[in-house]
């Protein structure tokens, strides 16, 4: 028997009981679609986080005050001390390390920003000229904070893109004055739109010199120090240097935490990767269930078509051929089912992508291949037994329909 004839005959017998066939394919395609959509979501979440970190900067090392212990309460809390804050002098001392390319001290505060009658609450970042490069930000108009004295307290500010639009509309913003808290600042530049990164909408920020911000919020501490290492390999050295310099300056107490972007990124990557696998695995169980369904349907098909099998044997079909026919049927069922499932899954991922545009929803290639292979595999595997059963039927009793 030719392959095309085998397939044609098998598809004929599938079309012979359309309801059953459609239900089977539905089960199969839902299984495949579930794997595709769920892994697409997981992968989307993973990429989202990776992108967020990438937009944060490259070769980034972050210093924050306080010591994060892996377990228990920090020793400072136990003894009634609060962690010592990181000061601008601490930041300047970091220049001793040769592995550091540049760094940007960072303060964060919130103040009301007003221009004439327009007024709103904004997040104010205090930093230096280096922030632009470290954080991969770009200017739309004007200049960023000028280089020079880190202690600079001049009354200048850089607006996030949306801030500019809200306060000035289409007017020229550079050179104009705005009121921030109790001080007046001159706008020297506007950032280009950059969307969201790490939960902070850069477009809605106002950036002022770190010295001014310390005055504005009446603090001498820093929220973070962002350090860019000279290269990827230097990250480790930077971490060590930053830690030893700050520990030394803080009288030997390890009251700062130094985290690298890579470490955080890898952790997220691992967690979300595992999550995707787990979710995909759970979805794959539905495929196994679909496989069992196929076995069930094939067994029914064998029972219903006993006479036909007997006839085929009488007409000269060897057992092997009967087995191939049932294999072909199962393969067609799971093949068409998984193609439908892929279409369904991609459509679902596309729709989710439309609803959540910031999430890069895309089923990973390995999941697509795994889902299809599992579908075909279970379909064919679970048809082995029914097919063998059909092939082993005794033609005499089969013809009698017993």
């Amino acid at each position, binding site marked *: 028997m030719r392959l095309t004839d085998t397939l044609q005959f098998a598809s004929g017998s599938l079309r012979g009981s359309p309801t059953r066939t459609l239900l089977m394919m539905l089960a199969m395609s839902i299984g495949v679609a579930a794997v595709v959509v769920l892994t697409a979501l997981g992968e989307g979440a993973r990429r989202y986080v990776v992108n967020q970190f990438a937009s944060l900067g490259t070769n980034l090392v972050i210093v924050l005050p306080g010591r994060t212990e892996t377990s228990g309460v920090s020793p400072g809390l136990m003894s009634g001390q609060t962690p010592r804050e990181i000061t601008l002098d601490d930041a300047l001392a970091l220049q001793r390390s040769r592995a550091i390319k540049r760094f940007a001290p960072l303060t964060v505060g919130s103040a009301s920003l007003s221009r004439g009658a327009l007024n709103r609450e904004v997040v104010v970042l205090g930093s230096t000229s280096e922030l632009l490069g470290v954080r991969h930000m770009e200017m739309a108009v004007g200049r960023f904070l000028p280089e020079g004295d880190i202690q600079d307290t001049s009354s200048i500010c850089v607006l996030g893109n949306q801030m500019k639009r809200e306060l000035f509309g289409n007017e020229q913003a550079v050179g104009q004055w705005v009121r921030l808290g109790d001080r007046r600042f001159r706008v020297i530049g506007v950032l280009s739109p950059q969307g969201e990164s790490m939960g902070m909408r850069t477009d809605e920020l106002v950036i002022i010199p770190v010295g001014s911000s310390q005055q504005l919020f009446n603090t001498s501490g820093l929220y973070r120090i962002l350090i860019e290492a000279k290269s990827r390999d230097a990250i480790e050295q930077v971490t060590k240097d930053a830690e030893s310099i700050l520990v030394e300056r803080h009288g030997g107490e390890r009251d700062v935490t130094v985290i690298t972007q890579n470490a955080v990124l890898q952790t997220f990557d691992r967690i979300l990767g595992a999550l995707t696998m787990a979710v995909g695995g759970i979805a794959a169980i539905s495929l196994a269930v679909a496989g069992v369904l196929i076995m069930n349907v094939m067994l029914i098909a064998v029972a219903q078509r006993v006479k036909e099998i007997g006839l085929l044997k009488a007409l000269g*079909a060897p057992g*092997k*051929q009967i087995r191939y026919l049932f294999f072909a049927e199962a393969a067609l069922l799971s093949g068409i089912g998984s193609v439908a499932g892929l279409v369904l899954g991609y459509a679902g991922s596309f729709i989710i992508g439309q609803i959540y545009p910031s999430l890069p929803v895309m089923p990973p290639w390995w999941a697509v291949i795994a889902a299809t292979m599992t579908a075909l595999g279970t379909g064919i595997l679970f048809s082995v037994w029914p097919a063998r059963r059909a092939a082993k039927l005794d033609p005499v009793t089969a013809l009698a329909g017993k």
Partner: protein
Amino acid sequence: MIALQNVCRTFTVGDQEVAALRDINLSFGAGEYISIMGPSGSGKSTMLNMLGLLDRPSSGTYLLDGGDVTDLNDEQLARVRREKIGFVFQSFHLVPRLTAAQNVELPMILAGIPVEERKARVQVLMQNYGLAERADHRPDQLSGGQRQRVAIARATVMNPSVLLADEPTGNLDQATGWEVLKLLEGLLEQGITLVLVTHDAEIGARAHRQIHMLDGRILSDEQQAK
């Protein structure tokens, strides 16, 4: 061309051995017209299954066209059935989802014959058996006589040397039954060996050679003068 030598066939029912065929010795030549008669349980159906290679003897030898087919494996048996034996059943055994033409084509599909040749042979046969207009009908749209003619067309499409018919008129009214019988007898002219199993004495009497069976034994084997 067909010879059964000391063929026995026993079935195990529960813990009892039941002999369906006891020590059968029988041989046919090409082009013979044989009827096998007997009451139910006499072993005539087992005999037909044996001749059609659907059943294997428990002991004894089966020679077909001079070759021993007793110990062939499943695939070889299937091949012999495909090429040398045609079956016609009482209940037609047409595949309900296939059209008349597709049913006739089925043995050639199993034999792996190319499509064009299949179509050509089906067309000729359908024409010969007066089924040309019914070629695209499904079995449930055909009358009993038409169904049996489709079945006969299917049994002969591979040009077998033996045609085994098990009560071919059993499900038909008398007029249609005679028609079908004449069609089968017409095949004798093409040199086919026709073996007819029936319990209808009137039909059985038409055969040139009549074998009566009882309790798995051949009771009588009469050659009629033509």
